[in-house]
């Protein structure tokens, strides 16, 4: 019987045991291949047209994915080999040389790898069609995706995985060379010494977590965060990871320790067994639970953030793009042509149609506490409108009118796309407007956090007393702009197209320079764009989130199975001592749920704090989307718990 026969026999006979390993390899191939396929899909690339923003996002994500998959494949391989040490030991015992065993393991791993590679790519072909459709759907693009076979992603996947699998195959065959025979037999029987939990480290854990939470929650009005965001953020992340590790390492041990002194609770048999088991595995638990809680946290932050952006941008787009259309009134003829199209529109009747004028005026903003967005973009100019105009617009848009505004005073108006603003910002400060060579001081008395433009970049607006406006008007050509609101603006694409054609045909050829106010702006185009950008974002993050979840779940799954195998005898002892099967099941469930719940809770804790800090800084409401995300994540995670528990129980009873 040659070595190959042994390898094949081994494979055939133990297929069940190999299944988990093959499944995780196949899963990795499948995920990677699907992702790379999306990257190279012509139909998707076409759907995006010239705006080639999908490429870089997908490339970045695929690199992240690769790193993650590499860790996962490595972990699965280690798990697989560790569980076979005894078998390998027997081969050695009956006289196979180390080289032979090493070669056997190498061949075997290569066979498994090639098998998973084939199955993974095959399944990936099907999945990539499904995911393409999902991506386009989320991005709001209607397109039927065809089944295509593209060679590039196949080649790329094969190369990447062959390399990875060669490495793991070598790792496996090296194990036999590294270990003494006796180690291979004792692999499963190593008793971990019980570490004495240190209350200092436990306190330190709470200290570190407390500091990072406090710092994150105060990032909003902290000078240090304002100037050193990157540095502070990295620092906080390191503190969080270190704190979590200490938490799992010592604080949980300390908790058991404290409980041990409360004998009434400790001597409850369930507590006695569960907590001592927890304590006995602190060393190995600490690292893995930290890794998992960090992964949980990262997934939740990434997905929560992406979903929030998607959810909020579409919900709050009207705050930034308040009108269905805005364009400059440059001549009577064009204006009438546009009106004709607008009035003829059946699906999108006009809700309001106004024309207003404003001035761009230079002003010194040195005295201001925070320089408003757009100030430098518009070459240190402000847009000025008289109070009457504002009130006319406010009336149409259902906004709060301003009753009085004294001479020499101004209320500033503007809304940041990202970044928080304060109602009383700059109040009491002075802006000097340049007026015919002299400077006119204007005092800021208030702020309106809203927008009166559709422009992509918006100037900061000063609402002035009507008399002041008249004064500064001299010598400046006002800009006349028309704003229209139509019904059902989310579905006004065709109307937009008509209007744009007319506008561009008439205005743009005459332009010798470009300024934001000269363009044509629509809500529907902005909406489409936002949906496609944030749709892509949520798809990529969702995809990564799903992969992270699966991998995290699998790592706990592997860990639990390894431990349960080690603990089989212990459960048998408990059965002998008089625990019924039902109670042993309960005990396993308790053991498993702790391993799942602890890192989930810590992960949710970290991600909520980070997201709430982000929400404060960016002034975006995260609560609803993040709650939705967390619930969805926890449910999927719960599914993993159930699978793991079922397998563990089967393992103990077999």
């Amino acid at each position: 019987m040659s070595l190959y026969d042994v390898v094949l026999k081994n494979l055939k006979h133990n297929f069940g045991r190999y299944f988990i390993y093959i499944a995780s390899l196949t899963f990795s191939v499948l995920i990677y291949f699907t992702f790379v396929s999306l990257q190279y899909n012509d139909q998707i690339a076409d759907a995006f047209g010239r705006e080639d923003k999908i490429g870089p996002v997908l490339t970045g994500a695929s690199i992240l994915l690769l790193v993650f998959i590499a860790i996962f494949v490595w972990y699965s391989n280690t798990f697989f080999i560790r569980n076979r040490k005894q078998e390998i030991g027997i081969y050695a015992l009956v006289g196979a040389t180390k080289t032979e065993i090493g070669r056997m393991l190498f061949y075997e791993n290569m066979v498994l790898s090639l098998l998973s590679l084939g199955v993974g790519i095959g399944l990936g072909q099907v999945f990539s069609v499904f995911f393409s459709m999902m991506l386009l759907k989320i991005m709001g693009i209607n397109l039927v995706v065809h089944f295509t076979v593209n060679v590039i992603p196949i080649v790329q996947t094969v190369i990447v995985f062959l390399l990875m699998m060669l490495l793991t195959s070598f790792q496996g065959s090296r194990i036999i060379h590294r270990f003494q025979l006796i180690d291979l037999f004792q692999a499963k029987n190593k008793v971990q010494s019980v570490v004495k939990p240190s209350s200092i480290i436990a306190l330190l854990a709470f200290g570190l977590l407390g500091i990072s939470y406090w710092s994150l929650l105060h990032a909003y009005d902290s000078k240090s965060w304002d100037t050193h965001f990157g540095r502070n953020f990295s620092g906080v992340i390191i503190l969080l990871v270190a704190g979590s590790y200490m938490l799992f390492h010592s604080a949980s041990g300390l908790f058991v320790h404290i409980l041990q002194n409360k004998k009434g609770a400790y001597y409850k048999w369930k507590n006695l067994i569960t907590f001592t088991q927890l304590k006995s595995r602190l060393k190995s638990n600490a690292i893995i639970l930290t890794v998992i809680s960090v992964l949980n946290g990262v997934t939740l932050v990434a997905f929560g953030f992406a979903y929030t952006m998607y959810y909020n941008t579409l919900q709050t787009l009207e705050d930034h793009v308040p009108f269905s259309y805005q364009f400059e009134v440059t001549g009577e003829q064009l204006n009438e042509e546009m009106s004709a199209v607008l009035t003829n529109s059946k699906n999108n009747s006009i809700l309001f149609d106004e024309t207003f004028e404003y001035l761009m005026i230079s002003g010194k903003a040195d005295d201001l506490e925070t320089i408003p967005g757009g100030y430098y973009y518009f070459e240190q100019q402000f847009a000025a409108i008289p109070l009457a105009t504002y009130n006319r617009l406010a009336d149409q848009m259902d906004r709060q009118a301003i009753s009085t505004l004294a001479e020499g005073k101004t209320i500033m108006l503007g809304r940041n796309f990202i970044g928080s603003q304060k109602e009383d910002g700059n109040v009491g400060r002075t802006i000097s407007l340049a007026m015919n060579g002299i400077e006119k001081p204007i005092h800021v008395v208030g702020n309106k956090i809203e927008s009166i433009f559709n422009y992509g970049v918006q100037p900061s607006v000063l609402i002035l007393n009507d008399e002041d406006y008249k004064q500064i008007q001299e010598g400046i050509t006002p800009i006349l702009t028309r704003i229209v609101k139509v019904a059902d603006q989310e579905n006004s694409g065709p109307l937009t197209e008509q209007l744009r054609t007319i506008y561009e045909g008439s205005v743009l050829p005459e332009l010798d320079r470009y300024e934001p106010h000269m363009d044509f702006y629509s809500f529907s185009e902005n909406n489409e764009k936002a949906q496609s950008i944030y749709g892509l974002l949520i798809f990529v993050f969702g995809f990564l989130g799903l992969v992270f979840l699966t991998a995290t779940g699998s790592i706990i799954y592997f860990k639990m199975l390894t431990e349960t195998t080690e603990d089989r005898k212990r459960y048998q002892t408990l059965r002998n001592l008089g625990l019924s099967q039902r109670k042993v099941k309960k005990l396993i469930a308790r053991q498993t749920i702790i391993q799942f719940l602890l890192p989930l809770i810590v992960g949710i804790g970290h991600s909520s704090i980070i997201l709430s800090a982000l929400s404060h800084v960016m002034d975006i409401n995260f609560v609803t989307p993040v709650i939705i995300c967390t619930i969805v994540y926890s449910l999927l995670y719960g599914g993993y718990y159930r699978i793991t528990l079922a397998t563990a129980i089967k393992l103990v009873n077999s």
Partner: protein
Amino acid sequence: MDVVLQARGIEKVYGTKTNLFPVLNEVDLTIHKGEFVGIMGPSGAGKTTLLNILATIDKPTLGSIQINGKDITGLRDEPLSEFRRTNLGFIFQDYNLLDSLTIRENILLPLAFANQAVATIDSKVEEVASVLGIQGILEKYPYQTSGGQKQRTAAARAIIHNPSLVLADEPTGALDSKSSMDLLNAFNVLNRDFQTTILMVTHDAFAASYCDRVIFIKDGSLFTELVKGDKERKRFFDQLVTTLSSMGGGNHEFV
């Protein structure tokens, strides 16, 4: 004397329809309160199978078992576990201690299962630990103790809840002779001072010589029975060895 255990017509057959393999054949056994009974026999005679069946861990193919007058053969898992927990104590060759629990925690486990009060648990642990001479190692973990200490811990765990019957499967199998003697002496003390009923499976004639009565099994059936009576332990030992030799196949099993 009260009957603690009464087994009638115990049969055990392993295997599937085509390949039946009988292990026990019509075994009857009666044990009275306060007895220290040994079961001996060559390898493969069915000693451990019999013990497992009496311990309710395994089920007989035929026959009935009554412990304290209660028929346990038809019981389902839940009541059976409950029964095992309150009425039986176990000692195994490989100790079966839980690694992650201290010696104290291992001993008190049966009382924790029975939801006893903390004060009761603590005083009980001290009591059995002093009888078995392991007070000094209560806060240690099993891996920090010797084989003999582990086995005495297992013995303490087996008797802490005052079971009607303690079942020991080759308890001295992994111990050196000094530790074996300590353990067997402890059994005698428990048996004499606490009226603990003990059923011990062993292939070691020396261990068996501590019993009041030894039952021999051969090929799944009862072979004979020796009672110690007023004999010296040394003489009882010689008798046991002679009987074993006469059974054949057992010669190599004792030293």
